[in-house]
C-alpha cells in the first residue's frame, strides 16, 4: 500500500514543481506550488513526521503561498489575466541544475546512512515540544526575537510617515 501511495505523492510533488518552473503564467505557477507543498507534506507523513506535515501545510500553504498570491495580484494590474513571466538563461540554468542533481544523487547514494532500528514513533509532538523547551531553547528564542523584529519592521515600513 505505502509504496504505491508514495510514488503517487512523489509524482504529484515533482510534477507540479515542474509546472511551477516551466509555466509562463505566474498565477499558474503559484497554484502549482500548492500541490508541490501538499506533496512535500505527504512525504513528511511517510517519514512519521505528522506534526511537520501539519506545519508545512499551515505555514507554506496558509501563509507563504497566500502572501505570494497577494503579491502577484497587488503588483500587476490586478484585473488583467495575462500575468506572464519569461525564463532567461535556460542553457546555463540547465547545466547548473543537472550538475547539482548529479552531485546530490551521488551524495545520497554514496553516504553511509545511519540506520536506527527502532520502533516507528507513534507520537512526535510531545518530543518536539520538550526538545524546543530544553535542548534547543536558545535557537528557539533567537528565532522568535528575529520574527518579532521582522514584524515591527514591516509595521514601520507600511506606516504612513507623519
Amino acid at each position: 500500500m505505502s509504496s504505491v501511495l508514495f510514488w503517487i505523492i512523489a509524482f504529484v510533488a515533482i510534477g507540479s514543481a515542474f509546472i511551477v518552473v516551466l509555466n509562463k503564467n505566474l498565477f499558474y505557477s503559484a497554484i502549482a506550488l500548492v500541490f508541490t507543498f501538499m506533496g512535500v507534506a505527504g512525504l513528511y507523513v511517510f517519514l512519521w513526521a505528522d506534526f511537520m506535515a501539519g506545519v508545512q501545510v499551515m505555514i507554506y500553504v496558509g501563509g507563504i503561498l497566500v502572501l505570494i498570491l497577494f503579491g502577484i495580484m497587488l503588483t500587476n494590474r490586478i484585473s488583467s489575466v495575462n500575468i506572464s513571466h519569461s525564463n532567461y538563461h535556460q542553457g546555463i540554468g540547465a547545466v547548473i541544475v543537472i550538475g547539482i542533481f548529479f552531485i546530490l544523487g551521488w551524495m545520497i547514494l554514496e553516504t553511509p546512512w545511519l540506520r536506527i532500528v527502532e520502533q516507528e514513533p507513534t507520537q512526535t509532538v510531545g518530543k518536539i515540544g520538550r526538545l524546543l523547551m530544553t535542548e534547543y531553547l536558545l535557537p528557539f528564542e533567537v528565532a522568535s526575537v528575529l520574527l518579532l523584529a521582522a514584524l515591527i519592521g514591516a509595521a514601520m515600513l507600511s506606516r504612513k510617515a507623519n
Partner: protein
Amino acid sequence: MTVDVLIDWLANLVDFPELAFILAVLICAIPAFLFIAVYALVAIYGELKISSFMQDKVGPMGQGPGLHAGKWGLLQPVADALKLLLKEDIIPASADTKLFILAPFIVFIGAFISFAALPFNQNLIIADMNIGVFYILAVSSLGVIGLIVAGWSSNNKWSLYGAMRSSAQIVSYEIPAALSIVVVIMLTGTLSMQGIIQHQDGLVWGILPNWIIFQNPFTFLAFFVFFISGVSECNRTPFDIPEAESELVAGTFTEYSGMRYAFFFLSEYANMFIVSGVAAVGFLGGWHSPIPGFLEAPGWGLFWFLFKVGMLIFVMMWFRWTFPRLRVDQLMNICWKVLLPMALLNIFGVGIWTVLAGR
C-alpha cells in the same frame, strides 16, 4: 470507527492492500459527503425559517412555482438544491476556464477533509490523529487559496476585490482562533481530538461540568475569542464584507452559478459545522453530557455532539439577523487590536492560573 481499523480489517478480507486502502477511504469519505449534503439541506431550511421568525415573518410555507413545497415549506431546501443542480453552467468568456473550474473544488476539499478529524462520539471518528486540532487548523487554509483562485480566474473586479478581502480576513482571523486553541492544548496537553474530550470528564467547581470553558475565567474568554474568529473565518455576517451584496454584487462568487456555486455554498455550511465542531470539542466537552455521568452512552454522545454543534450554528444564524455588517477597517481593527491582544492575554492568564491553582 477509525480508518486504520477499517484498513486492517479489509486487508484481511481482500488480500490486496492497495484495494483495502482505497475501499477504507471510500467507506469513510462517502458517508461524510452525504452527511454534509443532508446537513446543508437541514441548515438551509433552518436558516430560512430562523431568519423569517426573527423578522416576524413565516418563511417558506408550501408555496412554489408549480411544485408544492410540502408542509411548512419542508421541501423548500430540496427545491433549492434541485434548482442549483439543474441550472445552466455558465463560464464567462473572458474567465480563465481551467482555474475557474478548479476553484470550487479546492474550497470544498479544504472544508471536506477537516471532517476526517471531527469526533462525532466516543467511537465515531474517521481518524483520531495525534495532531487532530492542528490538522484541522492547517487544512482549513486550503480554502483561502480556493477563494483567491476563484476571484482571480473570474476576471471580474468584484470577484477579485471579494477574494482579496476574504483572504485577508481569513488569514488575519486565523491567528486569534489558533491562539485560543493553544489555550485548550495547554490545559489538555494533547492535540488529539479524543484526548481533548476525554480530559473534560467529570465536574469542576463542584457543580459545573468539567468543560474547558468553565475551568477558569481566561478559558471562558478564549471560547468567545475563538467563536467570533470562527464566524469571521466562515465569512458570515457581521463579517461578510467579502461578499457584501450592496457593494460587491456577490464578491468572489459573482460569476459562479448552478453546480459550481452550490459547491461554494456547501463549503460555507461545512465550514460553519467545522468551526462549531472544534468549538464544541475544544471548549464545550465534545460528546460529553452536560450532566456528568448522565446519558453518556455512545448513542447519546452523538446526540450531545450534534446538539452542541447545532446550538452554535443557531447562534451564528442569530448573529446574521442581529448585527449590521462591519466596515473593512472596523473588521481589521477588531481582529488585530481587540481579539489578538485578548487571545495573548488568555494564554498568559491560563499559564499563571495553571501554575497557581495547580490544575
